[in-house]
């Protein structure tokens, strides 16, 4: 996003310098100074004959805990394919206990790089650093920086703060909070904390960019069973294998990054299990969970058939009403695969195996030559199908994922349900 030729007067600012955040102004002058910027921009527009459009669908509050992260997030907006945003309020919380107690603000106008030649779409960005005691009142500080009467979407970067109260205060004024559990250092614990806090703010919906990363996989799985002829196999799936990428140990050491993040795989496992009607029961002896390596396995033998279909599997190919033996159960496993050059957590395989009258049918989606492509294939006895390559490139760009979450209003019930399923799968 290019600035629109705004003044960047940082010379007088004591303390933190944020040249990328625009002009430093005192918090009580934010609105007045922004109006001045708009007037200046309007003049520029008139000269270059461009039309100047302010967009106004939502307030977007971004919360970072250090300048580097904030700046990165600010850069992501540059690629955001949506111009929903009326105002971005970028908070940098200095949670260090010895940090100075102060609030500083910067303002700038930014324009989206897209659309037509004659029209430019702008939003305003207020950057605020909040430190020391002020943090405890962060919600009040944000309140004063919001555009009136527009919903507030909060994008929480990094891990949750140790002091959950800050998070809690912010979600009380938000209609949606967006997290990204792929970046959590301890994803299982953090997600569970986030979800617990959200229970106390029922008006606020929860989104996880990581769930968005699973969507393409869900769509491709659904496509297999759009074919009516294959739908009966849903009843007979007896093994599901899911693989997620983990860093090789040397890589992890190099990057100080977390070596694994099985959340995507767990969400997918939870979703498949639920959609197929399987229930986790307490007394299964051969479930195993190894969070250290990211290897999990469950066996389930209880099933709610109504969730799937009501008619038992009959002889599929012959079309005769020969009822096969009811399925003994299903095994779902989540396994790590070591791979260089791919981000830990990325899904790389889901395979569903069905056995019908001793013959196997296999539905597979597997990582292609790179992260941007997957290969889908079906092996059904007597019914050859061409494999195909599918591009899933759009599903890992942060700006695209973010865009999708900004599009939704209201709660994502399915995601919330899947979170609970994941917790259940992880519970000992």
């Amino acid at each position: 996003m290019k600035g629109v030729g705004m003044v960047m007067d940082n010379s007088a600012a004591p303390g933190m310098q944020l040249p990328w955040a625009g002009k430093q102004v005192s918090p009580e002058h934010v609105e007045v100074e922004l109006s001045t910027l708009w007037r200046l921009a309007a003049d520029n527009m008139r000269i270059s004959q461009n039309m100047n459009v302010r967009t106004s669908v939502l307030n977007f509050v971004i919360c970072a805990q250090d300048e580097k992260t904030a700046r990165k997030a600010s850069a992501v907006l540059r690629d955001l394919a949506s111009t929903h945003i009326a105002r971005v309020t970028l908070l940098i919380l200095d949670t260090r206990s010895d940090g100075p107690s102060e609030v500083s603000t910067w303002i700038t106008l930014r324009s989206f790089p897209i659309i037509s030649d004659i029209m430019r779409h702008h939003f305003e960005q207020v950057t605020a650093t909040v430190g020391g005691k002020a943090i405890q009142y962060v919600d009040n500080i944000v309140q004063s920086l919001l555009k009136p009467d527009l919903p507030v979407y909060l994008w929480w970067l990094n891990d949750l703060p140790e002091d959950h109260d800050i998070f809690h205060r912010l979600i009380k004024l938000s209609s949606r909070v967006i997290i990204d559990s792929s970046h959590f250092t301890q994803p299982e614990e953090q997600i569970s904390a986030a979800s617990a806090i959200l229970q106390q703010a029922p008006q606020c919906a929860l989104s996880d960019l990581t769930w968005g990363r699973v969507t393409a996989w869900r769509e491709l799985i659904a496509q297999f069973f759009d074919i009516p002829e294959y739908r009966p196999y849903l009843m007979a799936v007896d093994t599901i294998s899911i693989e997620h990428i983990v860093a090789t140990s040397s890589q992890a050491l190099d990057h100080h990054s977390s070596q694994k993040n099985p959340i995507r795989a767990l969400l997918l496992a939870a979703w498949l299990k639920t959609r197929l009607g399987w229930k986790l029961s307490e007394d299964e002896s051969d479930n195993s969970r190894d969070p250290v390596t990211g290897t999990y396995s469950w066996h389930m033998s209880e099933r709610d058939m109504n969730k799937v279909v009501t008619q038992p599997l009959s002889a599929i190919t012959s079309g005769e009403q020969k009822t096969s033996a009811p399925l003994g159960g299903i095994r779902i496993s989540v396994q790590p695969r070591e791979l260089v050059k791919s981000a830990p957590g990325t899904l790389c395989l889901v395979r569903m195996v069905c056995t019908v009258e001793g013959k196997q049918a296999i539905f597979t989606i597997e990582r292609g030559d790179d992260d941007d492509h997957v290969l889908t294939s079906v092996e059904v006895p007597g019914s050859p199908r061409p494999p195909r390559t599918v591009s899933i490139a759009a599903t890992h760009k942060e700006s695209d994922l973010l865009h999708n979450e900004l599009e939704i209003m209201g709660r994502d019930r399915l995601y919330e349900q899947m979170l609970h399923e994941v917790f259940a799968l992880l519970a000992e």
Partner: protein
Amino acid sequence: MPQRSVVEAPNPFREGLRIKESLEPCVMVIFGATGDLTHRKLLPALYNLALEHPLPAGFSVVAFARRPYTDESFRQQALESINQYSRQKPVNPQVWESFASGIHYLQSNFHDPEGYTKLNQLLNKLDQERGTSGNRIFYLSTPPSQYPDIIQNLGAAGLNRNRKGWTRIIVEKPFGHDLATARELNRQIAKVFKEDQIYRIDHYLGKETVQNILVFRLANGIFEPVWNRRYVDHVQITVAENLGLEGRAGYYEESGAIRDMIQNHMLQLLTLVAMEPPIAFDGNSVRDEKVKVLHALQPLVGREVQNNTIRAQYGPGWVGGKQVPGYLQEDGVSPTSSTETYVAIKTFIDNWRWAGVPFYLRTGKHLPKRVSEIAIQFKQPPLMLFKDHDTQGQVEPNVLTLRIQPDEGISLKFGAKVPGTDMQIRSVNMDFFYGSSFVREQPEAYERLLLDAMHGDSTLFTRRDEVEAAWAFVQNILDEWGAAPRDTIHSYESGSWGPQAADEFIWRDGRRWRRP
């Protein structure tokens, strides 16, 4: 509870996904696959659907035309077209390879029954190899003169239905040349296909903003209450093109502005603006209401045609910074041609909601710019409060404009006081740009429509009675024009907003055309 069969039950994995209904693999047979439309619109649309993967694995294309191509050479051509016209380019090689493996070329003349036998064999083979299970869409992308032959041959070969899957047919515009030919074409198709198999395409309906008309009207508490004769003074619908013939003189000479634009796109816009709320958002409910509007259009007969329509041809002039010849001087146009390149129509809808509210439609080529819009002008309040002030002519009526292209959006014009001590009122526009709030690159109209046809959703396609009702309205005008002397055809400078006569035509009513 009665037992649902596994096959009939909805796909449990679809819940919560963007596309909620199953899309089964199918074969699309494109008749006229070497033509312009196929290469500029259809193949790029299909490729985009494959790339963003709503298209299922196994989806296949059979390209049917006369020129000698092999599968391989046709795929090569297709690749080049997609690279040129697709909204996403360059082509992703890996996705292309998968997609291309499902494209086959079948060389045959449309008249040759042998071609349909070969088609039948190929379709059966694809059902086996690619799992398309008997699901077929025939797309008629050929000169309309070929439609009857193709349809009849499809019927003779038994390709109009099959036991295993569904069969649908998409028919391109123009749908008929006049009321008689449209009826005849409907009759011909109906001999072979049932109405619910037939998808008459009008790509205007695939545009997001056109679909937004109904949402805008019906989902907002503040607009629907004023959407009637008590508050609306009149409605103007404009579809202006700055282009001329673009090498399609042959086609245009036969058609003219009224057939090319009014009969289909503009009457569609009119029905969407004027229709009553449907009882549901499904194909037949929406179309039932649209047809009612067409039936309620006051037919123009005899002298009324002269009083309520203006037709004209562009003369020489300047458009888009270039000097251009007049219509009669264009290559391929007869110097005595009476084809109109501009038309303006005033019409009324005789129903409870709209009685007495004129609808003005105008369209033309070589106008100053390309724009499609619907403007609803509201009645003015009494202005006596301002009569002592010099506000004469300053207080303009409120206008709500729905812009279809370019820069889709909605704007509302209202009066505001100019700052200062005296009472000056100026009109200001409050704009909403569709693009500025929801910018994501919009799918092409054809992508949406092809996907709808594959899903079996006909809401955005035109029904038989709809096409015939639209033609019936236009036919009266055509008949009267045909009988009128040539000097009733006006002329306008290329690059202007139309003939002087069109201005006078609306001035008579004490109104004027908007300048979009």
